[in-house]
């Protein structure tokens, strides 16, 4: 492409409905449903509609810089409906030249030396260090050496980091089967790895585990994919639901994203909601309820491109 990049605009509707088999007396929820702004993403409008109406609602920024909403409902209710409606503008990133990126070992050593006090610590590395070690969904330890082994086939000696990461993303895409029935939000990486199946969340956790096991910093990005593909292009997996992908930290290029579920690099059809160490940090909606017995959840996501001039609001 030789034309300069154009911002793409989208309308997002993210619906979550919980139906409880018994009455809920008190509900406290934390939502990561407001798309975060970043250099190449603008948030034009956003509203969070909650029924029944919360008795308290607060917005803040979490420790990874994501907007987060908290609300509580202290009236008796049998169902909870949360709808996030947003309009965003997304710009495709300028691709760093993968072949020219640092050899992956150099990236690893840079991080190791800075974090262990053997080299000066720059703020970028200190920030990246948050995503270098184990986290609740992606434990790192002697038992995760097998992820390093798995990744080594892509991380050949001296290979540029971004090339190797792209190869790893492709390998996971090729060898793992997309199967929404195979896993739940709580499926451990080890099971995904053993059974070779899962969904975007699982593949992202696995790729993060591989990268961290090698000594690299990797974070989990939660967001959306364009629902209806442009004419003539295939519909991507993960649309109509929230999606997830991975970013790896490269000392010379910064954070670079990969989508192992679709074997691609996110451009202007991936809309970012939030990022963190793993799913647990950015889960779209989580809470504690009093009562409710059991519940069923329905989630629906629609992403619609906003055409031409109507775009900016």
């Amino acid at each position, binding site marked *: 492409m030789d034309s300069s990049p154009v911002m793409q605009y989208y309308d997002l509707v993210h619906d979550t409905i919980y139906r409880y088999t018994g009455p809920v007396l008190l509900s*406290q929820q934390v939502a990561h449903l407001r798309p975060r702004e970043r250099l190449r993403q603008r948030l034009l409008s956003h509203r969070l509609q909650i029924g029944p109406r919360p008795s308290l609602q607060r917005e803040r920024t979490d420790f990874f810089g994501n907007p987060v909403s908290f609300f509580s409902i202290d009236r008796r209710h049998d169902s909870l409906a949360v709808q996030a409606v947003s309009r965003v503008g997304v710009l495709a990133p300028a691709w760093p030249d993968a072949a020219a990126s640092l050899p992956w070992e150099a990236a690893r050593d840079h991080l190791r030396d800075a974090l262990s006090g053997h080299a000066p610590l720059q703020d970028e590395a*200190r920030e990246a260090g948050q995503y270098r070690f184990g986290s609740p969904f992606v434990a790192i330890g002697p038992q995760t050496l097998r992820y390093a082994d798995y990744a080594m086939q892509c991380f050949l000696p001296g290979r540029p980091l971004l090339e190797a990461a792209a190869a790893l993303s492709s390998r996971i895409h090729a060898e793992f089967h997309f199967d929404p029935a195979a896993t739940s939000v709580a499926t451990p990486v080890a099971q995904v790895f053993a059974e070779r199946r899962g969904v975007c969340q699982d593949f992202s956790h696995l790729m993060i585990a591989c990268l961290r096991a090698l000594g690299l910093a990797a974070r989990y990005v939660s967001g959306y994919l364009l629902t209806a593909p442009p004419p003539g292009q295939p519909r991507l997996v993960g649309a109509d639901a929230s999606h997830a992908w991975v970013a790896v930290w490269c000392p010379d290029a910064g954070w670079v994203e990969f989508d192992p579920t679709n074997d691609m690099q996110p451009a202007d059809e991936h809309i970012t909601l939030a990022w963190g160490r793993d799913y647990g940090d950015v889960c779209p909606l989580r809470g504690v309820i009093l009562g409710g017995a059991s519940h069923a959840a329905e989630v629906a996501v629609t992403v619609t491109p906003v055409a031409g001039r109507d775009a900016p609001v």
Partner: protein
Amino acid sequence: MSITTKPGSRPFDEMYDASGAIRPHYQPYAAWLEGTPRQLIDRKRSEADIAFHRVGITFNVYGAEGGKERLIPFDLLPRIIPGEEWRALERGLAQRVRALNAFLGDIYHGQEILRAGRIPADQILNNAQFRAEMKGVDVPGGLYSMIAGIDLVRAAGADGKGEFFVLEDNLRVPSGVSYMLENRKMMMRLFPDLFSRYEVQPVDHYPDLLLETLRAVAPTGVLDPTVVVLTPGAYNSAYFEHSFLAQQMGVELVEGQDLFVQDEMLYMRTTQGPRRVDVIYRRLDDDFLDPLAFRADSMLGVPGLMRAYRAGHVTLANAVGTGVADDKSIYPYVPEMVRFYLGEEPILNNVPTWMLREADDLAYVLEHLPELVVKEVHGAGGYGMLVGPASTKAEIEDFRLRILAAPEKYIAQPTLSLSTCPTFVEAGIAPRHIDLRPFVLSGGKEIRMVPGGLTRVALKEGSLVVNSSQGGGTKDTWVVD
């Protein structure tokens, strides 16, 4: 008696000097002991046992048969510290706790000490006790560990003089202060005549100091704060202490289910309706405080508590996230914190420590395992450690494999010859190893402590492990002038 230390080294005894003479501050005690028949002391001892059972001052030992409750053995022979020695310790403790609180404030804000390269960043970032949730949260007075228990040991220097070292900082929920208080009460009841021979500095005002400390860190603008003690419940090993302190301070003892958050305010349920709570002395680990912020499966905490805390509407004592400063992997850097934040030289020394994450240290330690004490970085309570001189060859080899599998999980220290104090045993009186845990209170601008603290004693001959969970006992601790 045999003591498991390097041959040639001989422990410092609190009562007898190297020539076997009684130290001046123990002379009135020795005179009293000489004039007191052994039968009387034995009788007093069973009296003490019965009284302790009646009070219910017990301790749960995890891993013992059936998680049995039992008494912590109480030794009737006091540990006596001369006043001037204590005052030096007091200055060192205040300095150390001031630096540790400054470190916590820095780590959860600007991280200057990491930027300056004085502590490696991975020690913090790869530490399960580091709570990212605390980043940017401002706590009253900048205080994180209002109640700190600093474990001290005394070891014989080359010149035979005893020197105190800090063995461990306890900045989360240090326990044991109830034993300190009960031990003193018991001693005064059993041996009132002894207290007429000494001017023993009192400790019984500790609950008052604690309450003043907690009130001093109340949220801004709260003039008459309501303080509560939060306990995980009656199954916790230190439940006795929780209820004891609440009762001594005259405040409510609550469990998570007694509290709730509404509009970012914390309330307790009372028979007269909800009542605002301003300060929680919590004896519950971070993980269990708020299922919305930490472990979602916790039934012990209060949903929404972290939000009320972050909004500055309630104070937690100690603050969330203090564990990152008392971890054994951070311990070696505490003297550096004193220099960095206070611009002073540390008054109290650390025990020299090898960090097995460093290749040179690892090589040295693997060569000298039989002489060293090796500890798990994240362990506590005397579990998961190797005391080289007291271990068999097989135990040492077994531990070597564990170290090799994950060297960064361990630190090592020389086997200190901990000081001994004469102690009543079956056969009479014999020296046993002891340590000291003073309780340091930080509230407002002042740092205060009651003189002394809790002396723990390793009752097994030659044992260096004083932890209550490992069969240690306690002694009354006297600071005398």
